[in-house]
């Protein structure tokens, strides 16, 4: 067995060596006269707009970055699972609850797979969802404001990796578990993993109008590793597919022990069937502990609610709801083509790429042609569900995307390339190298029935010499390819922030038109908002001092405050009175132990300051807001704890 694997790798290495030779030849051929043509394809003239938005996960940055294609320019980093001192996200009183979990406040996350909401199998650009891998959570970002507006923790899950993919009408955003765990969590020996640990697949419903998330049910599966997933679409709408590895159920040295079985599974889950079962009262409410955090754009404030139970379903309760499709060698990506017929299992240790047929799967289920079962779940026969396989396309297949024109594009991590192949004939059409060791790839409109197959970009794990060196630690690198022709054409390298896993992309028009410019001050329902300079005040409640402060070009009101004492907890509630596009104001005070605040027009944000020293301390606007920005400052006087300094404030006149 081991010998066979070695020889396979050796063959593939030689193969890879040949292909990379070919490719380098082609790349060289394109420099010179043709390269100017390539430059034109990615050139977006000053003041003009990119054709596509790309939302690239930040991986261990915990955030999501927004890029334009084809230029590869970065527009914004949206804070999601990590504190973000730039805006005060996770530091301001309003946004701290967003990072609350059943394990307490967590300042960091590992974001992975963004996916855009859909209507009738087409990307609609309303929301984007993204998963946190480490402390399992799913976040929703509103693409009207490009802000994180909801985060729900996923109980019974660990390594929230096969997430956060949406069904074709955004009925559900689905979250699988890469690590199986004891359910419910309990104190038990690790070596008793096998047969005792379970993997929860969570179906989180999304309310059609508001987008509010709620865990509808969790399917408690055998203790495998559920690696990636995608929804069925079109004819297979109503099903969800998950790749698994570690069907060996090993709990130690997985690199060896989870690579023993010749085939692992793709789990096919008929969620419509389970939904019906649950709607009729099926399943069990199980005690659980998870946070649900919601940001209200009118109060500009997030609230965190701890939920106490979750509905779980054992697949054996719902016959015909779950099947296993044998798939070679620890499949990673689980990708469904735009028609919903083909399910690609990217067996990362396999020399071939396996493609299953949804039609054949239904026929095999109908014919009850099973090859045994695992924990009560029927296993279909490999030959019965196989649509075909792409023979020896490369080494280490990870992910596949589709162009909507009958072609598929698969990344190969080990041979560091993208291979284009044809659905149905399984023939390889083209291959292009990536620099280096590509993980995911994205075609705009990727997870939908209608991909917008003009560009494809590869997100690489290794950067090395692609840019000017920046010491041992570098940003990752992506490569953009033109895929409008028969052959892929490499257009551009661009650095990406953090460790991008997946990205979601779409044509810019839908989102661009809806993007909000300001928050309406009239709609500001923040309890501590001051909506004009006349509303400003300072209120003491014991040792808490609340400052209702406003900003407008170019002053704070009040800008002189006295009567603060050591031991006080000072709340700066800062409302930006501006109602003009792109006129934020910032707030920072000397000795502040949190971050600055960056307050958008019409918004209120709060920073808490617990002064530790007597003195007169300045505060100022951190955003170069106007010609008089440098004048936008104030002073706050801190007296000794036992002082009698009266609480007074002013703006535009000396304090009496």
């Amino acid at each position, binding site marked *: 067995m081991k010998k066979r694997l070695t020889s396979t790798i050796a063959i593939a290495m030689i193969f890879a060596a040949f292909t990379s030779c070919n490719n380098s030849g082609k790349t060289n051929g394109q420099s010179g006269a043709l390269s100017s043509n390539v430059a034109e394809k990615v050139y977006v003239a000053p003041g003009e707009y990119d054709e596509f938005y790309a939302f690239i996960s930040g991986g261990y940055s915990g955030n999501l970055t927004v890029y334009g294609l084809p230029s590869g320019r970065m527009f914004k980093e949206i804070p999601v699972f990590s504190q973000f001192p730039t805006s005060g996200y996770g530091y301001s009183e309003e946004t701290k609850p967003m990072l609350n979990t059943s394990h307490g406040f967590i300042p960091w996350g590992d974001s992975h797979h963004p996916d855009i909401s859909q209507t009738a199998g087409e990307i609609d650009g309303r929301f984007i969802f993204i998963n946190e891998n480490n402390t399992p959570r799913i976040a929703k970002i509103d693409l009207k404001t490009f802000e994180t507006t909801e985060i729900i923790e996923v109980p019974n899950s660990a390594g929230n990796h096969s997430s956060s993919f949406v069904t074709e009408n955004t009925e559900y955003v689905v979250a699988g578990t890469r690590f199986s765990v004891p359910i419910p969590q309990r104190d038990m020996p690790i070596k008793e993993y096998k047969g005792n640990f379970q993997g929860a697949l969570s179906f989180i419903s999304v309310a059609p109008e508001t987008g509010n998330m709620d865990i509808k049910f969790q399917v408690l599966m055998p203790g495998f590793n559920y690696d990636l997933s995608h929804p069925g679409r079109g004819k297979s709408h109503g099903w969800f597919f998950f790749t698994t590895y570690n069907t060996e159920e090993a709990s130690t040295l997985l690199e060896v022990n989870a690579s023993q079985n010749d085939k692992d599974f793709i789990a096919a889950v008929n969620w419509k069937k389970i939904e019906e079962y649950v709607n009729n009262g099926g399943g069990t409410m199980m005690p659980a502990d998870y946070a649900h955090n919601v940001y209200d754009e009118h109060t500009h404030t997030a609230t965190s609610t701890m939920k106490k139970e979750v509905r779980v379903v054992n697949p054996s309760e719902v016959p015909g709801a779950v099947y296993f499709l044998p798939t070679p060698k620890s499949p990673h990506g689980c990708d469904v083509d735009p028609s919903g017929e083909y399910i690609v299992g990217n067996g990362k240790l396999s020399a071939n790429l396996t493609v299953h047929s949804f039609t054949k799967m239904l026929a095999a289920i109908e014919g009850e042609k099973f090859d045994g079962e695992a924990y009560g779940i029927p296993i279909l026969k490999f030959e019965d569900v196989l649509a075909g396989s792409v023979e020896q396309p490369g080494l280490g297949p990870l992910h596949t995307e589709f162009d909507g024109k009958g072609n598929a594009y698969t990344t190969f991590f080990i041979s560091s390339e993208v291979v284009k192949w044809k659905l149905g004939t399984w023939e390889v059409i083209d291959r292009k190298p990536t620099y280096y060791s590509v993980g995911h790839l994205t075609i705009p409109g990727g997870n939908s029935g209608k991909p917008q197959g003009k560009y494809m970009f590869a997100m690489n794990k290794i950067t090395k010499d692609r840019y000017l060196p920046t010491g041992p630690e570098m940003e990752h690198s992506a490569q953009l390819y033109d895929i409008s022709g028969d052959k892929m054409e490499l257009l551009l390298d661009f650095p990406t922030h953090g460790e991008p896993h997946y990205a979601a992309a779409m044509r810019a028009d839908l989102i661009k038109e809806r993007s909000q410019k*300001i928050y309406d001050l009239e709609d500001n329902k923040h309890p501590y908002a001051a909506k004009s300079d006349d509303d400003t005040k300072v209120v003491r409640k014991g040792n808490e001092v609340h400052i209702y402060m406003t900003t*407008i*070009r170019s002053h704070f009101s009040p800008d002189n405050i006295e009567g603060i004492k050591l031991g006080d907890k000072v709340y700066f509630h800062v409302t930006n009175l*501006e*109602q*003009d*596009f792109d006129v934020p104001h910032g707030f920072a005070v000397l000795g502040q132990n949190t971050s600055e605040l960056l307050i958008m027009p019409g918004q209120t944000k709060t920073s808490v300051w617990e002064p530790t020293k007597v003195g007169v301390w300045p505060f100022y606007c951190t955003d170069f807001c106007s*010609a*008089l920005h440098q004048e936008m400052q104030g002073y706050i006087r801190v007296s000794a704890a036992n002082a009698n300094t009266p609480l007074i404030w002013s703006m535009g006149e000396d304090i009496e």
Partner: protein
Amino acid sequence: MIVAALLPLGLFLFPLWRITLEAPQYPTPLAMNIHVNDFSDVHPHDIKNINLMNHYVGMQYIPEAIPEFKIFPTGILITSFIGLLIGWKGNYKWFLGWFILMLVLSAAGMYDFYLWEHDYGHNLDPKAIMKFTNKDGTVMGFQPPLFGTKDILNFKAHSYPQFGALFLGLGIASGFLAYFVGKKNKSTA
């Protein structure tokens, strides 16, 4: 003549005038509509943002209401009523009188507008953040043009009539036309 008398009522439906301010930082220009009875934003919050800009050079805030907002509508209602009355009574010579009355009143309105603009552009706060002087050393004013386009520091200011003014103009012209038609009918009769 009846039509002539009714047309100026369009001023209650459409703005009379518009002042637009363009600058590089305002890809969507700031603009204010002037109605017979109100100032209004062209895009949300434009007036607030014009005020914010102008406070740097010490200009006053654009007022919520001015006395003209009461006088102008009353004037229009009265002249329209007179127009209807003489249209109904039907002596064409009166049409000319109405036409001249309207011309005089409109000219007075424009002069009043000019006076307000002049005050707005020249009556500056002595504590203004930024003070500019002309080449001859006098204090620079920021009066928008009465009609046309003018560069004011980093802004390009446009001042042009709107639909309401067109209705008024057509009304006045129709009055004049009615006079000629009336005269012609009289002579042929």
